């Protein structure tokens, strides 16, 4: 049994509000583990603590067998923990290719290289274009990121995350703001990645979650109220009460 990521007793409070409440969770290597929950359940706070942008008040985060709780953002990235952002977060005035090339560059040693032109460096451009192809943006490589459509920017996000050669992906609502067509394409892309990568997926789109996830954890008010296979979660009475309540009432 190999765990890619283990969270134990994680606590984070903002003023009086407990965003993460003694949360424990583990993600097995190679699985797609979805975290769902109503708005304000503390999903984005959780991602922030996993990437290192937010320091937890208590608890530990272990990744690839080591304690990373106090590690800086860029160090975790070096260990192979990559993320995509909930709100599209690309370098707006760079081309798609340059965006991904920068992510590639991050994992080719230090960047105190002052002389050679980066834009024509095949060691950067080659992998960058590969990753763009993986997410279906091969023909948009030369377009400035800000000119890409919303869906394309989400795909670019993913390409940048992939370019860091991660062992594990943290996807913060990759389908946010997408139309059904774009969502479907993203699900296809993620399906292709499944197996090679461990993925922690935070998502509102239930169709996508149930289509992709191997296991699901339900978060309410910062606590995990249930973890299990999609089937188990679908039938869990607590979950139905707390989260799926309305939908199941309709059904």
């Amino acid at each position, binding site marked *: 049994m190999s765990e890619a990521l283990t969270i134990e007793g994680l606590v984070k409070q903002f003023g009086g509000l407990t965003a993460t409440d003694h949360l424990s969770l583990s993600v097995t290597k190679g699985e797609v583990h979805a975290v769902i929950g109503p708005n304000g359940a503390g999903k984005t706070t959780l991602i922030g603590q996993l990437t290192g942008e937010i320091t937890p008040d208590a608890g530990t985060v272990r990744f690839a067998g080591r304690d990373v709780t106090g590690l800086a953002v860029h160090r975790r990235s070096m260990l192979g923990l990559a993320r995509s952002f909930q709100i599209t977060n690309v*370098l707006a005035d760079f081309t798609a290719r340059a965006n991904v090339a920068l992510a590639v560059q991050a994992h080719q040693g230090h960047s105190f290289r*002052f002389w050679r032109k980066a834009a024509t460096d095949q060691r950067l451009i080659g992998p960058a274009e590969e990753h763009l192809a993986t997410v279906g943006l091969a023909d948009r490589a030369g377009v400035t990121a800000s000119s890409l459509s919303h869906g394309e920017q989400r795909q670019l996000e993913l390409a940048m995350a992939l370019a860091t050669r991660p062992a594990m992906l943290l996807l913060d609502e990759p389908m946010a703001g997408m139309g059904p067509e774009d969502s479907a394409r993203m699900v296809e892309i993620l399906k292709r990645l499944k197996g090679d990568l461990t993925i922690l997926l935070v998502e509102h789109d239930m169709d996508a979650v149930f289509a992709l996830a191997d296991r699901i954890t339900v978060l309410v008010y910062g606590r995990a109220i249930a973890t299990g296979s999609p089937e188990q979660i679908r039938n869990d009475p607590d979950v139905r009460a707390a989260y799926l309540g309305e939908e199941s009432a309709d059904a």
Partner: protein
Amino acid sequence: MQMIRVGFIALVMLALAVVPVVANAIDEPFYVSLFTRMLVLAIAASSLNLVLGYGGMVSFGHAAYLGLGSYVVGIGFYHAANDGMDWALNGWMHLALAIIIPGLAALLIGAISLRTRGVYFIMITLAFSQMLYYFFIGLERYGGDDGLSLWYLSDFGSVMDLNDDSQLYYLAYGLLLLVLFILYRLVNSRFGMVVRGAKSNERRLMAVGFPTYRYRLVAFGISGAICGVAGFLMANQSEFVSTSEMHWVHSGDLIVMVVLGGMGTLFGPVLGAVGFLMLEQYLPELMEGVCHIIGGSSCGIAGEYWKMVFGPLLILIVLFARGGIDGLLQGKVGRNV
């Protein structure tokens, strides 16, 4: 538009290349010193452009590095003149120290300042430059705020003689070209991509694994070092070093030059420095002329109020010509270019 832009920039650079020749031909040596000043400030503005234009770090204290560079020359001269230490006039040593000392100072100041963001960064860089300003005012030995008159300039032996205005001019011109070439390589290198990326979206860069702080810091240090070169030239051009070049308003002037010319473009700061000094030189005359044309009285003093026009002009540039001169050449008018 691109053609016009390239043509214009080439024209400016070419025109700058022949200034001493023309000035001496028409027997107007004043233009040599005026344009040397432009070249010097163009180097200083280019150095600021690296952090401001490419790196998004609004340093409001770059006059400090300019001042440090010029004090290298001044202090060397002082000891040569007063303590008989002739070697202290060595130009190569001046140049090297004018790169190293401001560069180290910038690294030190940057190391603290880059922990802050936004307005805090603007203000802390300002605070550090004010600290240096007061420090040199208190340094009575080197003239305090009286400054130091340089009776001997940096000595390059038989290689060149900076007392010759034309030679000094071409040294400044050569150094400007060199600085521009270095900056060109720098901003397009892997290092440059990180610095520019951090301007665009630092959070994203950290997420993909860049320790952005140290790249920004190195950029800041390089910028300070280049600015020191400008200081070295400025001391030799004005044959004088003084604390007033370190005053915060001077840091503001440098920012104005960068923005006037066009931030984050290679030649923008050059155009900005030329434009700024042209305005400083000719706006008063222009105003006097306009005053005469509209038949005003006591036009002789109209030019003294040139800043009353320059101030609003600056506001208009910020509001409507955000890309500066370079942006206008590309046909970009309006807000977010």
